[in-house]
């Protein structure tokens, strides 16, 4: 597999240790709802007005799990593995490597199920990966 090296490096970062890491600060010890629960649980992702095609696809197709709140499954999953705002893919300062995005989308990654070419075409995936790869 062409990108195996990159994938392995990135996988190491989320291996067993971090899978069972303590809850992230926004969950830890809170006796009330998580802090971002105050953000209404909305369907913004379904109504993207972004002009960039990659962003629009991300918000409508990926945003159902990766929007900016730990009440979305993908963001909650990444909260366990990452620090601060890294849990929100679209806010990662350095961007997310495009090849990594493409591999994870097609193969899934632990909790994340894969998306097929009928869910998201190769061309659409290229646009999403390019959007996520850009530094924010």
């Amino acid at each position, binding site marked *: 597999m062409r990108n195996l090296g990159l994938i392995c490096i990135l996988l190491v970062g989320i291996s067993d240790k971090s899978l069972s890491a303590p809850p992230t600060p926004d969950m830890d010890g809170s006796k009330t709802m998580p802090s971002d629960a105050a953000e*209404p649980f909305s369907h913004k992702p*379904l109504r993207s007005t972004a002009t960039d095609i990659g962003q629009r696809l991300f918000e409508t197709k990926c945003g159902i799990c990766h929007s900016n709140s730990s009440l979305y499954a993908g963001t909650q999953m990444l909260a*366990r593995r990452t620090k601060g705002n890294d849990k929100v893919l679209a806010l990662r300062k350095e961007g997310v490597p495009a090849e990594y995005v493409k591999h994870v989308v*097609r193969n899934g990654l632990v*909790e994340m199920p894969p998306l097929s070419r009928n869910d998201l075409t190769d061309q659409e995936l290229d646009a999403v990966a390019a959007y996520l790869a850009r530094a924010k």
Partner: protein
Amino acid sequence: MADQKTVLPPGLNSAEFKLALKALAAAVGDQWVKSDAGTIAAYRDPYATLDDYAFLPSAVISPASVEEVQKVLKVANETNVPLWPVSTGKNYAYGGPAPRMKGTAVLDLRRMNRIIEVNEKLGYVFVEPGVSYFDLYQHLRSIGSKLWVDCAAPGWGSVLGNALERGAGYTPYGDHWGNQCGLEVILANGEIIRTGMGGVPKSKAWGAFKYGFGPYVDGMFTQSNLGVVTKMGMWLMGEPPAVKPMVIQFPREDSLAQIVDAVLPLRKAGIFNGGMMLSGILWEGGGISPRTRWYDGKGAMPASAISQMARDLDMGWWNLVTGLYGTEALIASNFEIIRDAMSSVPGAKVVTESDRPTDPAFAYRKKLMMGEPNMYEFNLINWVPGGGHIAFSPALPLDGAEAEKVYSLCSNTVHAAGFDWMGEFACQLRSCLQVQFLPFNRTDPDERKRAHETFHKLVGLCGDAGYGEYRTQLGFMDAVAKMYNFNDNSFMRLNEAIKDALDPKGILAPGKSGIWPKAIRGVPHA
């Protein structure tokens, strides 16, 4: 990650398979027949107790029309390539898009995604398999329709696919199969049939009257392998004057029987008139944060930690989630009756929207009660690391003693194996389904094996006690089918006789619901 080994349909060598793929490509176009590892990987079940390889397909074929499905079936019959039809492939916890038998080619119907008709006046739609709850919801809102979709909890599922699996929802139309009306089916020999009034070419009642004339065959195409359903009529509820979402919380685990017995008369009398989930605290609060927030030890979460979680989240050990539908006056009157009746259960607390303005669990349920799809419930995959989960779903009468018996049997079994009981009772009119997630760390081979064995134990124990599952994950279909063994398995003999008559070469979904084609009947599969 999917195993990269080449997978072939059983009985075919790679030269024969190559020829078959060529013929399939001629039927639907080159780009819609794929057998490369990259494509196949997206059709595994990422949450199964067995490894990916156990249920990996050999190819994915994606037709775009009825005519193309017919052509694919013709080629499949000629080349012996078995097909596993999926609608959107999101049947997770029961297998996702993966086929029962390794090497079966997935017939992915996602591209057939037309909403063929919206009948605003009578309140129904006709959809193709690839239409998701999100798709239908957005379409209805965009045309200004006042019809509601009754959604399965994760909104990316197929409207048609979920109904064929006999899934459940939240509004008064929560019995998805119960609200189906009219099918178009392509049989294994390529013949197209339309059920109900669809048989009368000029009928205007295909989506309005289910039964037509003569044998009522629609049910034969649910959870089965007798045809490819390409269109389905689905009744939709018109927006009612008022809705009142509510949760009734009960603090004590041992109140289960009392709760169910208090619900039944109100259900029968139509006072409770929406979909209804009696949800355990791990399910109700499990989407808010992972388990480690409440308990970080090994084995099943102890009762003390579960009680603490309920207290911290201000939820019950049991949470009866439902909505009341009708006029303001009717709802107010029913609400009083319900409050009085349910107060017979110790500590019962009725909670409505104004009490829970920031509770995400209340918010997602409310959306579902009003026909708005979302993905919140998918958060439950984060409960334990490694995301594995399969659903154990036995059916039982809506009766307190029965619910208590099933809960004790299932919770004791999973606790003894070191797993949590995370579940809810989906309460219907006279029955309920104990829908129980078995969450496990799929990256831990020992835990995966233990989950597999525990699930088999659940199937056996519950089956022997009289509780058959209404739906199950791929690897347990044979075991569940064996529980329906009245009169020396006469039900399976009937299924097999029909299978042999309609699909003699056995090309459609081998092994679905434990029904195998004649040629490979009795051959062991993973």
